[in-house]
């Protein structure tokens, strides 16, 4: 890992493996694409600079996660809010239609869910992101965020209740 600090291509390959996960985390914290990319740039520079000091026995992703999280926090604090388009998409089925809703309802719902996510407290949103968009298990989220598993459970539940209310999902449920 240390040698990568002086190897541009190796560093780029390493970060390319993690970029989508890192982007998702930055996005869930900043709330929009532009700020997420900006935070990612700052985080990647920090990672590049700090690689020589990285302890090779430690897992890489939790370390990267903390750097991205802090960069995203700073970004959210320092920059004025951009809005931009909704960075969520439906996983398409083989027939090309979003499942399980019609196209019109799906687009509207996509926006309501994203806005609902932005309205909820960050600690809930991040847990929701890890579970739903990263597909992590409760134990994995607890380890990554250094939280008791019961806290993960209650934050995820609270996030779902908030989302149901904020995104006005009652009619669909």
């Amino acid at each position, binding site marked *: 890992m240390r040698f990568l600090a002086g190897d*541009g291509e190796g560093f*780029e390959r390493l970060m*390319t493996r993690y*970029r*989508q996960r890192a*982007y*998702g985390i930055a*996005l869930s914290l900043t709330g929009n*694409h532009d700020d997420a*990319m900006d935070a*990612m*740039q*700052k*985080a*990647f*520079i*920090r990672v*590049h*600079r*700090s690689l020589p*000091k*990285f302890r090779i026995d430690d897992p890489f992703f939790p*370390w990267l996660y*903390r*750097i991205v999280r*802090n*960069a995203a926090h*700073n970004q959210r604090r320092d920059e004025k809010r951009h809005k931009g388009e909704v*960075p*969520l*998409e*439906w*996983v398409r089925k083989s027939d090309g239609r*979003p*499942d*399980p*809703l019609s196209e019109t309802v799906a687009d509207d*719902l*996509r926006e309501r*869910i994203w806005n609902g996510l932005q309205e909820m407290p960050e600690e809930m949103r991040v847990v929701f992101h890890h*579970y*739903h*968009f990263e597909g992590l*298990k*409760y134990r994995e989220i607890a380890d990554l965020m250094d939280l008791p598993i*019961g806290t993960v*459970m*209650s934050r*995820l*539940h*609270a996030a*779902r209740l908030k*989302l*149901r209310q904020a995104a006005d*999902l009652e009619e*669909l*449920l």
Partner: protein
Amino acid sequence: MNGKGPFDPRKEAPLLSAYVDGELETVDVDRIEAHLAENEQTRREVRELRRLKDITGVMRIKEPPPEEWEVFWKSVYNRAERSLGWILLCVGLVAIGAWGITEILSAMLETEALPLYVKGGIFVLAAGALVLMISAIRERVYKRKQTRYKDVIR
């Protein structure tokens, strides 16, 4: 008996999410299912949680297109270059500033025109500034050593 007693939806509501996600131990699954068998309101709650999970389960974060990642990497390298430029600029300024201050102080202390107590004052002022600077640097170094994730941006 499992020792936990019957499931109480008012106090243990988060367990319902964990139930829907299949994250509960058998003992809690049994407690919830016993409760569900008798309680329509909780059954509805579980149905709604399942539906919400179904909806969010078919959503994902859009991946930025490849051309955007190309621009991203160029910006990362440009930024890294600029930050190196800033570091060099600051080091140069500090070196030149230190030389300038030393020259000014030496000239002041060597001049015959200033009375001895003013020279003493200048010397004490410079010593005070030096002590403050060393103290601030030492504190920063100490904090970096003590912080586990010292490489993380604060």
